[in-house]
């Protein structure tokens, strides 16, 4: 006897809540994604490969995933430091900094895009500083990187903060009584406890950066082969009414994201097995 599909319950509203949930999920999320996959199937594997296997598309995909990886790595380090400072230390202005971490979530991406461009363009406040050093930020890959760092900033901090708040001081005290210095305790005792949450934040930040469009297109310059991101290619294909081409690139992005998240999940399982659950 297998487990029943649905256990009996005295709670009311089963039909209504299940009906609304499954209907809306199907209509709004699953059906449109199904339409994308169907378009891919009807286009065929050869068609998809022919679309993706072009210099311009490879460069865009490689650029999107490479810069997203760099941005997520930067955010991993910055996010853990921010989480530590915000949970462990008490200083004036802490609440403002804590709230500021969420601004990239609350600020529309197009707004962030034009703001970052104004800031880092050669005549902008930061852009002018870098220009004197002979370093261009806006309309280069550096600009894209900064935009991706901005949109992914809150993820690691927000996943790691609750874990730091739950660490028992006794663990660190035990480490100290056993003769470990503070640095040793942080790297060997505290960091392993934070790592699974930090990796989750890293994965979320990466997934967000790969698909990001609004904050990037203004600062990128959008030069084919150099600063053209994968989501922009989809938009260009759609503007040329090439639905097959757009679907092919969309599917390629979904597949690569899926493989990356799978890899991160496996790393996480491996790190949990090695270090144990927290």
């Amino acid at each position, binding site marked *: 006897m297998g487990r029943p599909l649905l256990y009996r319950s005295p709670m009311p509203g089963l039909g209504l809540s299940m009906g609304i949930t499954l209907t809306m999920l199907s209509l709004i999320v699953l059906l449109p994604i199904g339409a*994308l996959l169907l378009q891919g199937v009807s286009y065929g594997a050869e068609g998809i490969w022919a679309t993706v296997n072009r210099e311009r598309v490879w460069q865009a995909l490689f650029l999107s995933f490479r810069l997203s990886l760099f941005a997520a790595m930067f955010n991993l380090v910055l996010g853990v430091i921010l989480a530590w400072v915000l949970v462990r230390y008490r200083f004036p202005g802490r609440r403002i900094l804590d709230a500021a971490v969420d601004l990239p979530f609350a600020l529309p991406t197009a707004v962030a895009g034009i703001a970052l461009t104004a800031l880092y363009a050669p005549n902008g406040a930061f852009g002018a500083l870098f220009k004197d050093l002979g370093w261009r930020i806006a309309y280069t890959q550096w600009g894209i990187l900064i935009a991706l760092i901005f949109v992914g900033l809150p993820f690691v901090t927000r996943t790691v903060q609750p874990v730091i708040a739950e660490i028992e001081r006794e663990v660190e005290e035990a480490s100290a009584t056993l003769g470990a210095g503070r640095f040793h305790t942080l790297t060997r005792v505290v960091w392993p406890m934070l790592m699974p949450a930090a990796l989750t934040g890293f994965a979320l930040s990466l997934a967000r950066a790969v698909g990001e469009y609004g904050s990037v297109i203004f600062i990128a310059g959008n030069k084919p082969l150099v600063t053209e991101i994968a989501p922009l290619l989809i938009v260009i294909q759609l503007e040329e009414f090439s639905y097959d081409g757009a679907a092919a690139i969309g599917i390629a*992005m979904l597949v690569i994201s899926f493989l990356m998240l799978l890899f991160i999940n496996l790393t996480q399982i491996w790190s949990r097995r090695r270090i144990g659950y927290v």
Partner: protein
Amino acid sequence: MSDATNLRAFRAPTDEAPLARWLLIGFAALALAILVFAPLIVIFAEALSKGWSAALSSLNNRDALAAIRLTLLVAAIAVPVNVVFGIAAAWFITRFDFRGKAFLITLIDLPFSVSPVVAGLCIVLLFGANTVIGSWLVAMGFPIVFALPGIVLATIFVTFPFVARELIPVMIEQGRAEEEAALTLGASGWHMFFTVTLPNIRWALLYGVLLCNARAMGEFGAVAVVSGKIRGQTTTMPVMIEMFYNEYLSVAAFSMAALLAFLALVTLLLKTLLEQRHAAGLSASRKSH
């Protein structure tokens, strides 16, 4: 030596050295100043670069006002839909036991891991004028893509998980006992919902609505793909910002951006207040530390 100085000199073995501590705080403040505060200041500085009257008059035209109205309308449809779905999904997931629950939650979270552009693409592929469904709907005089329904659908897609995600952890934490008590005392299903469940989840619900609304009004990628960018008809505020910006109407673009940035600041303020005043009603990961 007084006791006070002794206390100050004492450092617990679980604290970092004061120098390391202040360096870390300084680094955190500097990083946020460069990455977050500087762009925020630039928006308002650019909007007001030609003065208040120029900023206000740049928004006082037909296209800009139509964009503001459209954005408010889209949010007014998308947010209530999201609330209904969020409550239904959270009720179904936390009040019944069934197989495949984890899979269902993964599906609800799916829109977070799909690029907004891909989300828009999916809707175009389903309802575009070249598809079976789309061409039929256009013939019936009810176009979806390049019209309001498509923008609303795209917005609901990208905001889909917001309310459900806030409610599910809270309703798991609260358990079913109170609702079961209400039922044994003879309350009807709706009576129980409005007198027991809703008061218990109201702060988490408000929190979800806040985040959902901010995203609904600010969504750009998905909406840009389905809107067709017909001036004064299918341009939401973020799409209008792009058009102004590409036409070198800097003051207009940044004034519109300042409106949305102000909305973001209000959202953050209310969110922080909720986290501080009503932490008990929010999910554990939302409590302020």
